[in-house]
Every structure is written in structure tokens, then in C-alpha cells.
């Protein structure tokens, strides 16, 4: 399926939801206390009309030092998981995660050594899909249910086409893909009406909040981060915030030797 057709279907779908009572359904659900407007919790509202944010190549820079100084909080994870209807399970086996925190030694296993400063060792590093330029998950998917968007490099996921073979999960060197081992819906605390929930048996992952970028909003994690540790921007634009950060500070990427060209950068 071409990018144009996907785009069309998505636009058509969104329009249909909006027109055919999606809003009133949301209002009803809100009244019943079942749902919450996701956007409100991350500082802005979905209804704000704004021009789409565009980039030739979206990339993220995470200032891990700021995470540390902010006491390794979990605001990014909470916001992301809330707006995207990510379920919460009691056991780690069934877990679904889009963005979460890992000890430095787990996120950067090949960079760890015993004489690292204590605070670095104990930094909880936010990890998410790296939106690789050379994504192994896309290479292995037998149905093209996951693909890299040509216009901005975001690695996308089609939950309606995914057959649940989990080949992409086996191929991702970052453990960034989750599978719905059980029906996620009963495990979503408050369902957000403006984002789809998933069914069991499909893979899902972070999509750099492409649904927010197109509405002119920054990703939920970036907005939610009180420390300002997360920046997103156009890697191809020399004046972008991410490029400036990368020019000023020393940065690392996860498992660079694998040649996947991850587009999430960490400054320590």
C-alpha cells in the first residue's frame, strides 16, 4: 500500500470519527468518568487548531543529565502511556511499553564500566523506539505492517495489518516493540477517545507522536517533561534545536555498531 493511500485512509478515518459522533461519544464517556481528554494532561488541547509540525527527518535528543537532576521522574512515560491508551499489567510478562526508563547499564550495555560516576550509574535513561534510518524491524516484517515513512523517517505501525508473528520484536536490538499478549482494553485506566486502542495479538510501539505532530503539537513525552530534557526536531535543518544540541554537547546513540542509525541521541 502506498503512503498516499494510507494517508488517505487515515484522514478519511479521522474525519469519519469526528463527523459521525466521535465527539459526542467522547462527551458522553467523559460525563461517565470513563475517559479523559488526553491532551489536557500534557499541557495543551487536541482541539487547538494549529499547522502541522514538519521535518525532513525527525530526531530526538535526550539530556540524561537533566533527567538525573530532575530526580529520574516518570512524567514522560505517564504522559505517553496515557495519551496512547497503553495498558498497564500487573506482571512484567504481559507488559506493553512505548517509553520507559532503564538503568544506564541496561540502556548502554556496551558503554558501561565499573568506574563510572555513581550518579551516571544510577541514572534512569528514558528509552523508546529509535526510529532508525535502517530499521531491522521493517526489513523483517512479512506483511509491511511496519514501515519507515519516506517524508520524515518515522517508523510506523499498522495495527490492522499486523499478523502478530513478532518477527519485528525479535529483530529490534533495542527491545522497543511490545506485543499485546492479552486484550489490552480492560487494562487501560482511562481510555482516551481521541486515540485508538489496540486488540490482542498485534505489535505496537512509539510513533514519535505522529498524530500530535500533524496537529501542530509536540510529542506527549516532550511536552510532559518538566526538566526540558527531551527535544525533538529536524535533523536535516542545521538551525533546529536538536542539531544545535548535537553540535554543542557530546552525544551517544544506542548500539551504533549495528548500523541501524538510531535517531534518538543521548547527551550525558
Amino acid at each position: 500500500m502506498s503512503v498516499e493511500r494510507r494517508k488517505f485512509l487515515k484522514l478519511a478515518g479521522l474525519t469519519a470519527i469526528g463527523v459521525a459522533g466521535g465527539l459526542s461519544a467522547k462527551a458522553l464517556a467523559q460525563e461517565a468518568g470513563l475517559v479523559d481528554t488526553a491532551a489536557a494532561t500534557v499541557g495543551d488541547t487536541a482541539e487547538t487548531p494549529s499547522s502541522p509540525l514538519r521535518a525532513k527527518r525527525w530526531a530526538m535528543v535526550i539530556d540524561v543529565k537533566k533527567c538525573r537532576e530532575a530526580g529520574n521522574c516518570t512524567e514522560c512515560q505517564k504522559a505517553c502511556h496515557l495519551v496512547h491508551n497503553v495498558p498497564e499489567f500487573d506482571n512484567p510478562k504481559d507488559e506493553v511499553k512505548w517509553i520507559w526508563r532503564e538503568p544506564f547499564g541496561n540502556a548502554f550495555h556496551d558503554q558501561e564500566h565499573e568506574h563510572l560516576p555513581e550518579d551516571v550509574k544510577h541514572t534512569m535513561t528514558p528509552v523508546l523506539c529509535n526510529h532508525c534510518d535502517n530499521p531491522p524491524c521493517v526489513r523483517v516484517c512479512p506483511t509491511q505492517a511496519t514501515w519507515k515513512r519516506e517524508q520524515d523517517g518515522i517508523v510506523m505501525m499498522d495495527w490492522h495489518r499486523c499478523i502478530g508473528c513478532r518477527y519485528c520484536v525479535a529483530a529490534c536490538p533495542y527491545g522497543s516493540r511490545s506485543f499485546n499478549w492479552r486484550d489490552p482494553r480492560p487494562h487501560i485506566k482511562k481510555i482516551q477517545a481521541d486515540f485508538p486502542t489496540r486488540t490482542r495479538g498485534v505489535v505496537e510501539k512509539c510513533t514519535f507522536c505522529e498524530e500530535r505532530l500533524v496537529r501542530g503539537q509536540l510529542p506527549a513525552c516532550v511536552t510532559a517533561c518538566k526538566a526540558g530534557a527531551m527535544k525533538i526536531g529536524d535533523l536535516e535543518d542545521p538551525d533546529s534545536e536538536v542539531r544545535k544540541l548535537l553540535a554543542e554537547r557530546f552525544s551517544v546513540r544506542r548500539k551504533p555498531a549495528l548500523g541501524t542509525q538510531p535517531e534518538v541521541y543521548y547527551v550525558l
Partner: protein
Amino acid sequence: MLEHALRGDKRYWSWVIALMAVMGAGVLFYLRQYNVGLGITGLGRDITWGFYIAQFTFMVGVAASAVMVVLPYYLHNYKAFGKITILGEFVAIGSVIVCMTFIFVDMGQPFRIVNVFLYPTPHSMMFWDTVALGGYLVLNIIISHVTLGAERKSIAPPTWIKPIIILSIPWAISIHTVTAFLYAGLAARPFWMTAILAPRFLASAFSAGPALLILVCFILRRFTKFDAGREPIQKVAQIVTYAMAVNLFFVGMEFFTVLYSNIPEHMSHFQYLFLGLEGADNLVPWMWVSVILGIVSLGMLTVPETRQNDQTLILACVMLFVSLWIDKGLGLIIAGFIPNPLHHVVDYVPTIPELGISFAIYAMGLLIITGLYKIALSVRKQLG
């Protein structure tokens, strides 16, 4: 010819009914998995492929091994295999169907599996594996149907079948090679990222599969009037011996590369399998049993006295088959996931429903092979 499978004595029907009972239980377990999701298996966020995919991988080998009797018979005109070639081909048919069913039950959205054909994806090894397995099944069905049909009419098989038989030889190699490529190309999983994985797969297949065929011949001799004869069994035993020697040599290569290079990312998986890692050690006793059975069985097969004695040959074949089943059907797939890419160590145990479904799939394979053998042996009996 199918009517032959529907006529049989009491013993035949009790065997068939027993298999069907196991299959019925499996269907109930599968319905539960279908309704709840793969969460009822031992799989989870860290170990995403397990018992099902491991059985698929092992059985691809059993399917591919038919080539070890097809090749000498058709390519080198080795007449002694005339009686057992069709048995090998029928094992291949049953095994490929077993493989496909294991893949099917491992899918999160099984009825979307048609998407593999609706959106053919040449850069995915899974697409090529589907093509290879499907093609191999079709080839074996055509070949066995045509050759057995000709045998029934006591005429020579038509000449057009010969190129198809020749094609089935490299095709058999391809199914296990492409299956190895499923794993060997993943930078995320250092345990599988070895160029020797496909050769290893073939060597283990060409020993485990023919060993099974030997056992089948002895079972048929015990329970039916069919006797494969001493020469073909002894010849297959030699094939098993050489293939097993090559297989153990290849495994030794893996050990050398990993242990001498000392790369932690590669070593940790071997540590998990043979010593245990951070408290995770479910497979340690299994793997040692596999190594010991593998070495002892090769020894027994190499010594002419124990290879030529029916009792010790049977014992060696059982030990070899179990050894390779543990290696591929338990260790190989699971160890790829432990430790995970974030270096967390989580152990895996298949659950009762997972095992129930797996037993049912194996029972189905046995039922298919039983039916096909019944047909072949009845045809031969009529011929006298």
C-alpha cells in the same frame, strides 16, 4: 487410494482414536488461546518466541531429511532405497504440515496470515520461508502420489515426474537454509548471528530425520508385515553417522568462536544454556543431557558392532533424536532471547496449554503419517 486409510484392524483404529483424542484436547486448549491471547503461553515481553517456534524449527529439519533417501535413490539409482523412499516422502509431508500448524498457532492474529500473500514482501525472510515450505509440501504430495500410483498399476512412473523429483532435492536444502536465515540475519540476537547456522541446521536435520526413519522402519517391522530390509536400514544408519559427526563438529566450531573470542554479548547465551545466567538455568540440565546423548550416540553409531546390531542401533537412534530435539526444539530458539537486548535475564517455561497444543500438533502429524503409510503399505500388500 484414500479408502485404504479407512480400513484397518482394531489396533490401527485404537491408535487413530488415541491420536484424535490428543488432537481434541489440543483444540480445546487452542480455543482458549484464541479467546484469551498468547498471554496464556509462557511467552512474554522478553521471550517472544518459544516452544511453538522451536518445534517448527526442529520439524523443518525432519521434513528436509527426506532428501537423504530421495537423493541416493533417484540421483544415484541406489535401488536398496526403493522400498523406503516413499516412507521418507510421507514423513516430509506430515512434518511440513506440522511446521505450518506450529506457525499458525504462534500468530497473534492467525486469520490475518493471508496478509503474507496479499502483501508479498521480498525483503522478509518469513515470506521466503512460506514460499519454500509451501512449495516443498506441494512437491512431495505430487511426487509421492504419482510414484505410488504408478507402483499400484505396476508401471514405471511417467517421465515428467523425474525433473520434479530432481527439483525437490535442492528444494529440501532450501527449506532448512531459509529457516536458518530467519534467525541468522538478526543483529539483535547475537546467539543466532552465525554464518554456520544453516549448515548446522542441515547437518542436524540429516542426522535426526533419517534416525527417525530407521526407528519408523523398526516400528513397522514390529507392528505390520512391512520389512524395509537390512541393507537400506544399515545404509541410512551410515548416513546418520556421518551427518551427526558433521553436526557435532559444527557445534564445536560455534563453541570455539564464541569462547575464544570472548565477546560477552555472544558468550552470555552459551552461559545461560550450559551454566545458567543470573539465576536463570531452566535449560542447563537439558543441554548437558543433549551433549552427552549426542556424543554417546555418535560413538555407538561409529563402532560397527553397535551400529550393525539392531538393538543398539535403535538405542543410538533414540538417543540421537532426543539429543537433537533438545538442542533445536528447546535450546536454540529460547537462548536467543536470554539475555534480552536490554540485558535483562528472564527465564521461560512453556505452560500446560502451550504443551497441550503442541502435543496435539504432533498427534496430527502422526495421524497424517499413519494414514499415508497405511495407504502405501496396503497398496504394496495388494501387489503381494
